[in-house]
């Protein structure tokens, strides 16, 4: 429970402190499939539907590494 609160706080904090640059968002694609990405602002993730992967955004910096992406169940 406490962990969950911390996580939420951190998430809020991240959104407040560092927004992803919209110009950067415009040019990014999935590094694996080169398909467009969906920006999930509350989760701070960039989602590649084709690859089934969610790339995290940490402190406004997208981490476009396949081995750090979260796999999405289809």
């Amino acid at each position: 429970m406490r962990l969950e609160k911390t996580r939420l706080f951190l998430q809020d904090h991240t959104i407040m402190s560092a927004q992803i640059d919209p110009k950067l968002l415009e040019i990014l694609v999935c590094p694996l499939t080169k398909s467009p990405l969906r920006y999930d602002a509350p989760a701070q993730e960039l989602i590649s539907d084709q690859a089934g992967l969610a790339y995290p955004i940490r402190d406004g910096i997208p981490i476009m590494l396949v081995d750090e992406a979260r796999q999405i169940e289809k």
Partner: protein
Amino acid sequence: MVNAAPPSSVFDLEARKCARIRCVNTLPAHDFLFKWTQNVLLERLSDIKRQFPRSALLGGRTSPDFSDALKIQAGSDFLTKMDILPGAGVNVVGEEEFLPFRQGALDAVFSVLDLHAVNDLPGALLQIRRSLRPDGLFLAALFGGETLHELRASLMQAELSLKGGIAPRIFPFADKPQMGALLQRAGFSLPVVDSEILSVSYDNIFKLMHDLRFMGESNVIAARSKTNPGRALFLKAAEHYGKNFKGLDGRLNASFEIIFLIGWAPHESQQQPLAPGSAQKRLSDALQTAEVKIDND
């Protein structure tokens, strides 16, 4: 977790990240190669009288003021700096061989001493070319085949004489002629490749190896020996180095070859070769000489 690296990787990405994390604090005092290279790159760019509104810089070890200088010189209003790790000035984390940029999204891609540790260099170059709009510029510098040839030979000799076999300790760097071929293979037009060899002098090989480690260039070859090589190996290598690669001033020479690459994404406005046999004038007229027929016997 998805494992994207092919099983035959030359370089170990995790080790590459570790080497880079370790050097975060020491890099500013050991980044002379990066400083030198970024200045040459800016010079090269100043010869190109064009504007590149949207550009990317691959490699995170350039100084923060370089990004600003690059933006001004390239006429960019948007420059994204990509590295394998988050760090100063980095605004996207990614791998060169899995480039996260949309096709034709960029006007220019720059890279400073970063592409030598990439597993799939042809693939990385192809993806860079695809991320450029037609007539977009690729301007990069990377370590070439002559780099650390003295240390390579010394370690090899030492290891052979002590252990009767060798482990890979220095990167397999690409050569200048190979780079020209790779640029063409990746579909770049008007490719230009040249290199400069920097000779750096050291008191001893331990200072050289410290420098390499402190700039984040320790051994990240996947097949590297993971056991401690022992003091004897390095002492033997030092002996070989001192005997063979000493300068006139008694200090040890270490070579760093920096290869510079320029390539353009193809565009119809670029000069094209004419079709064979389409010449309008005779070569002999242009040279003001008589034409001599050669017998083909």
